[in-house]
């Protein structure tokens, strides 16, 4: 039986459909989850998709973090449940304090959509195990508030523990500290990533098919659990 990966829809989520498609294309079954219920419906992992939850008018992810579904996800994640937050999902994870730091306004002050080269730095997380260390990939980046910021202590901790999972290469799109594009929690089950792997799953509609590996990685890791 295929593993079920839940995709959460908050009001204002945009990439939920695409994330579900990526899960299916990777060989999993996508399970829609609605923000207003705290029922995880026995999914094996969860993706928090991109978008502008609640319009992102206050701070990105700040209001979504209090949705009933997040209460369940926070508890589960603390017990090792796999969670991938993409873009707005990453912002929600930071607001939930499942991941350290915060995502702030792009240094250029504009929304930026581009094909972005990344270097995968950590292949030990549930979501990145299918990559080789140092692998360079190209997937779309699209956000207005993607600049990863934290204090020096947190940055040292992330770097010394190898918790940066991906870094921007060749071009600094937003002024993130140490060019950080994605990080993980200590346990490696929660990953936040600013660029969008779900938009790089077929070369017809994306810049590459590199993004699919995030989803196949998780499905493979679930087998081993």
């Amino acid at each position, binding site marked *: 039986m295929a593993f079920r990966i839940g995709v959460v829809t908050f*009001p204002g989520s*945009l990439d939920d459909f695409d994330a579900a498609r990526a899960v299916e294309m990777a060989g999993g079954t996508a399970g829609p989850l609605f923000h207003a219920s705290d029922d995880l419906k026995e999914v094996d992992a969860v993706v928090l998709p991109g978008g502008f939850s609640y319009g992102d008018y206050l701070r990105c992810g700040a209001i979504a973090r209090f949705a009933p579904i997040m209460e369940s996800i926070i508890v589960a994640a603390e017990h090792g449940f796999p969670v991938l937050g993409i873009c707005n999902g990453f912002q929600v994870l930071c607001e939930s304090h499942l991941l350290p730091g915060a995502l702030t306004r792009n240094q250029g002050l*504009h929304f930026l*959509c581009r094909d972005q080269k990344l270097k995968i730095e950590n292949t030990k997380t549930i979501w990145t195990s299918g990559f080789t260390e140092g692998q360079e990939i190209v997937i779309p980046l699209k956000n207005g508030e993607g600049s990863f910021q934290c204090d020096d202590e947190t940055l040292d901790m992330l770097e010394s523990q190898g918790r940066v999972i991906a870094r921007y290469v060749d071009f600094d799109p937003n002024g993130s500290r140490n060019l950080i594009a994605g990080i993980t929690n200590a346990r490696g089950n929660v990953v936040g990533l600013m660029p969008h792997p779900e938009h790089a799953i077929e070369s017809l509609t994306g810049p590459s098919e590199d993004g699919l590996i995030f989803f196949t990685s998780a499905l493979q890791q679930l087998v081993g659990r």
Partner: protein
Amino acid sequence: MKLDTVANATANPDTPQPWVELGLKEDEYARIKSILGRRPTASELAMYSVMWSEHCSYKSSKVHLKQFGEKAPKSDALLVGIGENAGVVDIGQNYAVTFKVESHNHPSFVEPYQGAATGVGGIVRDILTMGARPIAVMDPLRFGLADAPDTRRVLPGIVAGVGGYGNCLGLPNIGGEIVFDETYAGNPLVNALCVGVMKHEDIKLAKAHGAGNLVVLFGAKTGGDGIGGVSVLASETFNEAKPTKRPSVQVGDPFAEKVLIECCLEIFKADLVVGIQDLGGAGLSCATSELASAGSGGMEIQLDKVPLRDPSLSPEEILMSESQERMCAIVEPSKVKQFLAICKKWDVTATVIGEVTSGERLHISFNGELIVDVPPRTVAHDGPVYNRPIEKPAYIAERQAVTINIPMPTSSTEVKAAILKLIAAPNIADKSWVTSQYDKYVQGNSVLAQPEDSGMIRIDAETNLGVAVSTDANARWSYLDPYEGVKLALAESMRNIATTGAKPLAVTNCLNFGSPEDPGVMWQFAETVRGLADACLELGLPVTGGNVSFYNQTGSVAILPTPVIGVLGVIQDVRKRTKMGFEKAGQDIYLIGAVDSNMSGSEWAYLHGEIGNHAPKSDLAMEARLVELLLEGQPIFESAHDVSNGGLAATLAESALKNNIGAKVELENVAVALFSETPGRVVVSINESSTNSIIALAGKYQIPVTKIGMTGGSELIINETHISLTELSKAHTETFPKLSG
């Protein structure tokens, strides 16, 4: 203030009314009185004034636009034609596609961010109203000179507004235009196009049928946004001397609209509406009168039930408010509970504000008192019609007498300098600084987006059916000859569709002009409509809808006549689309079509302060054959890129820079070959093994095909001129960042 009821209006026939301030003409006011048999109440006056404004009533353009119906080609694809919120075409496999382009010019000058944002919001609601899921947007834009101070104010705001709203809705932006010309200073054009898709059986119409059915207003609460905006803002020349006419600005809430979209789609899926209308210009005045007018009976509205953001609004203000993100639906009583439950799920405010009646009048009451009692048709559909004076402007003859005198480069140094100058010109330069502010990936179906010749969206992931859309206008040609100019714009748009491998199917348009009270402008308009109708008939493409924007002028100076033409095409298998960039080294480059030496209206002439004398003459029969050629030849094309603004020089540079693959090209009469913008041309690259096929195609369709060179290397080489791609790219990409810096 005392409520001006119908009883009061009858009892006090001589109360003075501000019909002049509301933009009505004396005869129009008289006509309202004769329709009603008394003076209108304040609320009725508000409704008539907004609905009879140029923007809502098309009073100056109607007599001309009729031609789109009269000359309409027979088309089996057309499911819903002009008149509804947007036209709908059949693209096969039981899919129906709707698309439309609309202007939001004046509001975007006053408040660029919000004006542009609400422009996108408005067109998306039009598409949604048809029952469709919106799937993409495009934004044809025009600005004053790129380095003018006001452009620096207006452009970043408009771009941020288009992006801010569209990105938040989750609609990929798949194309548009950015053109600079001094006539747009003070009159930027913000046109927004939206495409939506649905199944045939899901098409919805804006009609109020069935006595006893309920009128439900849902979405955002009503505030004081844009009150008077319709009649005052959209139909009077913006004039700084009359600051009181500065309307309050509409502010968009894209999140509210995103939720409204999801809510509507769920309501449509459950089949809960009889008719539906969005609230755009003229707000509730428009929605109620149009629904009732198009329906079978009358309507009764209790205006005090409208949920207000600002409780101090008067009834006439409620009727005129242009608060965004609102919809009005006609719902059977038995389905209202379910309707309201879905709204609740999405946290969308929904209120029953009235019902459809068996009568013939639109009755609106406020706290139990009747304030509107009108025949809805007289408000919505039977507004004034003007046959405005038309006169061919004197400049036409003056222009035609001019001889063009612009430097044409000859030596290889001159050719190089000319190419670099041209591709760095704001009208030709790389637009990524703008387009990278737009999400082109969301929804995961964008097969092509800017800077490709057309945007392309996959409709069905199983069958790979897709649609392509392109928008084009060449205002300089329209200025020289509006009849030919619009035909050329249509031909270009159609060619852009076919260049990517899709078959042109239907046309939309947004006609941006100066004041209709100027007979010269009216002539430009009349010629444009005649040209477009004739061209559509000849090409067999139906016009499915459009929009007219008048009064785009500062003082006596009108903008260049700018008919923006959108063409929608269908492609059976999106995997087979052709892209604009050279794909591989060592492939043969062919120019399809022949060049001539007319430089009028070209960018090269414009860069030397010249507009020229005669626009090119369109050859639509040839353009139609070219489309056939492109479609039949599609399997052998490794790349294909249309030749338009900037001529062959721009086309070659763009194809080379796309994938960083150079080219070596041999041209005769090099300056004309590079910079002339003769229509009807496309550059393709093919494998050598396809040589016979392309020659056969040329013969079959009687279009000249010339091998001009070969792809490869890291330079663009034209005869003896060598330009490294690095240098080319620098010139092409530096312009916009510099302008913004």
